[in-house]
């Protein structure tokens, strides 16, 4: 089993290279890279200066362009450039943003706490709500409580979380003015006392948190419910009851434990949620996390940042998958991976 997970961990490397190489190649074919942007910016400036007509469209000489291309490493073939990127990555150097001239690593680590904050709390709250609710729904299958919550759960599942976000902002921020329109903290956050700061973050977090939870919540609750139902109908539970075990005990001692197994396979996703989260929610609520950074860097063609985020998030996603399987193997002694 250990060998199996070792192999799984090693397999991350070729997959990682496959994924990053693909996106790296894609970004190379893209018009509007840093050099082109610079040229157009200079054109704008010279237009404002009113001397554009004499100099024509080109404000940079070919030599200068070549120099800039060399500076950004754009003159090298894709594979060579990719190899260099990979080499730097191993030394935890993600390069420099072509837009803000800041190290990508700093830009990411600056925003990481925000994404981790949301990831962590989403995880805690959705598990705390979904598992009991799933159990309740399974035990009262077909009852009024079950039907009523089903409709709610399905709607939560059907609705994209960012649509819920936009809707919540309209109602609770704009019309009722109960919550801020977005952002992670208030502008004068630094002047607050600690208690005020905590309250401020919580105040900003309510609406986005609802959006984050809503999607997870439906899947977790339904998984929990269906598994428990299935286990309740299984022969071993029937046997236990036939032998005189009270129903409550049968649920607690037998069915519940087995129903938690599939939930365990969900645990690994948590790792990726920490970082990837939902960038749409960050965009809607203007939360300065990794998601918003990724979106902006794509829109601004800031490819070192794009690559950096891709590298980190895909690595975490793959680790999360392996972790999911480890969790399942830990909870369920019947699972024997790799044998």
């Amino acid at each position, binding site marked *: 089993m250990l060998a199996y997970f070792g192999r799984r961990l090693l397999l991350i490397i070729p*997959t990682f290279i496959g994924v990053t190489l693909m996106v790296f190649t894609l970004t190379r074919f893209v018009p509007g890279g840093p050099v082109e942007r610079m040229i157009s910016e200079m054109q704008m400036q010279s237009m404002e200066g009113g001397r554009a007509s004499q100099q024509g469209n080109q404000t940079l000489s070919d030599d200068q362009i070549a120099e800039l291309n060399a500076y950004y490493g754009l003159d090298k073939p894709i594979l060579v450039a990719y190899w260099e990127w990979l080499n730097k990555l191993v030394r935890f150097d993600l390069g420099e943003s072509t837009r803000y001239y800041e190290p990508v690593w700093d830009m990411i680590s600056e925003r990481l706490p925000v994404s981790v904050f949301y990831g962590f709390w989403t995880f805690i709250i959705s598990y705390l709500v979904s598992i009991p609710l799933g159990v309740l729904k399974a035990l009262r299958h077909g009852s009024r409580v079950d039907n009523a919550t089903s409709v709610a759960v399905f709607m939560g599942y*059907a609705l994209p979380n960012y649509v819920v976000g936009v809707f919540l902002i309209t109602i609770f921020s704009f019309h009722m003015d109960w919550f801020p329109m977005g952002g992670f903290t208030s502008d004068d956050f630094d002047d607050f006392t600690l208690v005020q700061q905590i309250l401020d973050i919580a105040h900003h977090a309510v609406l986005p948190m609802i959006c984050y939870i809503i999607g997870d919540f439906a899947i977790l609750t339904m998984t929990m419910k269906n598994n428990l139902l*299935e286990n309740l109908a299984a022969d071993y539970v029937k046997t236990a009851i036939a032998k005189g075990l009270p129903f409550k005990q049968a649920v607690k001692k037998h069915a519940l434990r087995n129903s938690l197994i599939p939930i365990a396979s969900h645990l690994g996703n948590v790792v990726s949620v920490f970082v990837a989260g939902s960038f*749409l929610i960050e965009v809607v609520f203007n939360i300065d996390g990794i998601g918003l950074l990724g979106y902006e860097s794509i829109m601004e063609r800031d490819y070192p940042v794009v690559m950096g985020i891709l590298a980190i998030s895909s690595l975490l996603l793959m680790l999360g998958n392996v972790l999911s399987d480890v969790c399942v193997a830990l909870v369920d002694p019947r699972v024997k991976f790799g044998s």
Partner: protein
Amino acid sequence: MKLDPLTKKKIRRFRSIKRSYYSFIILSTLILLASVAELFVNNKALVVSYQGSLYFPTYSAVRTGQFFGEDYEYEANYRELKQKFDEADEGNWVLMPIVPWNPYEQDFNGEAYPPNAPSLESRHFLGTDESGRDVLARLIYGFRIAIWFAVLTLAICYTIGVLVGCLMGYLGGKFDLVMQRIIEVWSMVPFLYVIMIMVSIIQPSFFLFVLINVLFGWIGITWYMRTMTYKEKAREYVMAAKAQGAGTWRVITKHILPNTMVMIVTLAPFGIVTNITMLTALDYLGLGLVPPTPSWGDLLQQGKSNLNAWWIMSSVVGAIVTVLTMVTFIGEGVREAFDPKKHTRYT
């Protein structure tokens, strides 16, 4: 088409789940109506009676204003024509659709600067958006595009996914192994991210957009089909068919596929939800279909930036909630009807 008793039973079971059955009927009606939206929402008249003869401009060739005795040579403005005919009272008349606006048309005739609130008088039943275009018209045409995008993407994804998945499960061996690795790498690619990069480079047309989304959408069903085929392959009926000399293609299409249909039917509604959500999200970010195309994502974006114009936000959110919830209900119903597992209950 003759249905076998089992399928009939499944359909009967689906019909007995009221929530799903009614959703199915309502949604089908909506899709049908949207397919002929030109008859309800259009700036072209349904019928024009001019000098004793009838014209049907909705689906006929473009008729100029001159044709109807006006002094301009571009396409006739049927709304003005209607007014003129009504005032002149010479026996000519124009029958306009319920919403006499098309989704691209900008209406600046209102007293205020757009977005304008809903008004019965101007026949903007859900108001106008920030460029003065009718919200209801854009909602309906946006629905039509979204649903066809979702269905088309799903159909292509499933064709590829079912074929590849079946072959992987049935052939096994090297083909399976190689495809597994490809799928593993492919499914690790953050597809929304890549689609965003691709779309920010090229402004795709509808079909190109479908293709880009297919590129990343076929994996899910492949994985399911592979497992299903693996299971079915080991069953006696497949062995019997093989023993009687049926070839690979025949075994897959005639024997395995009908028995794995359940999976496809069950997953399809959820696939539709995913596709609609994706299109709306990309449109919301401005990375979807080319701008003037009516779309829900675009309306959502406008609603967010014009929070005062409550009619934009409430109509688009209402539409998204209604349609997606109905599709999910249908999906749940299908799942329940096709999955014969009945749970024992204790009280």
